[in-house]
């Protein structure tokens, strides 16, 4: 199982075993990572599973769809590395991924 490291807004690191095929958002929620709200449950309608993903991972992730690009702009404190984690499927290639959680989703 690929390991994903979530860095919570207080700086705490949480290493989790992620399930291939599920979303990065699900990996966070199911492993008690704080700071991912996922209000809509993964339907791409709320922008509250927002997180930052280091650029060096960009080519290993599936690129954001047009709809994700619209919705990610609706999150708080958007940066160039912002993604919606419900839209990123976990693959073996993501082993070692580091995901930084923003200070607030609302």
């Amino acid at each position: 199982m690929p390991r994903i490291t979530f860095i919570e807004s207080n700086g705490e690191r949480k290493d989790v075993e992620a399930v291939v095929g599920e979303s990065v958002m699900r990996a966070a929620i199911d492993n008690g990572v704080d700071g991912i709200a996922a209000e809509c449950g993964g339907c791409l309608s709320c922008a509250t599973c927002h997180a930052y993903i280091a650029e060096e991972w960009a080519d290993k992730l599936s690129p954001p769809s047009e709809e994700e690009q619209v919705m990610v702009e609706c999150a708080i404190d958007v940066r160039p590395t912002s993604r919606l984690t419900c839209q990123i499927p976990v693959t073996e290639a993501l082993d070692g991924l580091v995901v930084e959680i923003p200070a607030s989703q609302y």
Partner: protein
Amino acid sequence: MSQAVVREPKVYPEFTERPDHVPAELVYDVDIYNLEGAKDGPHEAWKRVQQEKPPVFWTPRNGGYWMVVKGENILEVENDAITYSMRAALVPNNPRPYPAPPMDIDPPDHSKWRILISPAFSPKAIQASEDMVRKFAIDLIEGFAPKGECEFVSGFTAVLPIVVFLTMMELPLEDREALMPHAAAIVRSPDPTKIHQARLALKDYVEQAVADRERRPREDLITKIINSKVGDEPVPRDMAVGMLALLLSGGLDTVKNLMGFSCLSLARRPELQRRLREEPKIIPHAIEELCRRHGVSNTARLVTRDTELAGVRLKAGDQIQQFSFLYGLDDATVPDPMKVDFDRPAPIPHATFGNGPHRCPGSMLAKKELQVWLEEWFPRIPEFRLKPGTRPQQDAGMVANISELWLAWDAAG
């Protein structure tokens, strides 16, 4: 893509004859518009239905349809938006007199429409309007605080959501008086003709706003929606109008009643008030618990293919209503579900805003309105109670409602 406009609503008989595929032992006379015991508390009345009736049963009232009252089956319906289409969201089953995307559009096309409105209810959009919501709430509360009493519905809950909506849409705030009765009639009236007229009135109101933007475009949501595209096609005018009318009707009576029932709980339990007053940090968590305990909205579905739910055979064309708030009130969901308990572990499970692709787009806005209310209420109002000699006016319906709630407190000075 537009659908035909239905001019006249269908009037259903008091009782509809049981279709052949409905077993006689699954027929129960339960009327959402005249529910036994609802005037003493609709949630308690529905909880009794959940305890006493089968998970899925058929009522001959309001056109004849299935009711789903068990938590796990409610989730099953909400999460399968293809078998259970929202094209028949209201009972009795009368189509709206206008198309209402994204609600009446099934997946996979649904998401193309949903994305047109989601940004308007996103964290960023809500943050942008928060100062205004707060200022308005403070003005209302400070208006009645010195009096030592208020009628919370007309004085607060009926006003705040509509002002929030009008502000977000950049519509004149003075329009609220004219809009409120129509919004209430749509979800509360069992009379199809009245519902039909109220829907047309809201649609006419939105149509005027659209016509205004067509003449003078602005930097606002209405202009954005009428100029938007679905795929490569411009959104047809009637679809844009219908979508805006749906947003308008969806955000009014719902937040109002969620807030009203939550306040009734607090008025009856001073210890809950003390917690929120002394520990304002728990307010967001407390709101999840209040949402679980006091969900208000329940939408119906159209069964699109023969299927089975809780062992009951459903036929394509049947209508089925799932009671979203009964998921959070099911003993299988949380222990002691009828009790408001701010110490439940997070996340507090509930389906108050639904699930799946049709989940309420305004849930974050609704919670923000509750948060602002509680944060601004406690610094200004001392311990409050039901005003002696008054009785909260409650009832069931498509939206469980509380239409009058008198509160009293010891005014300073």
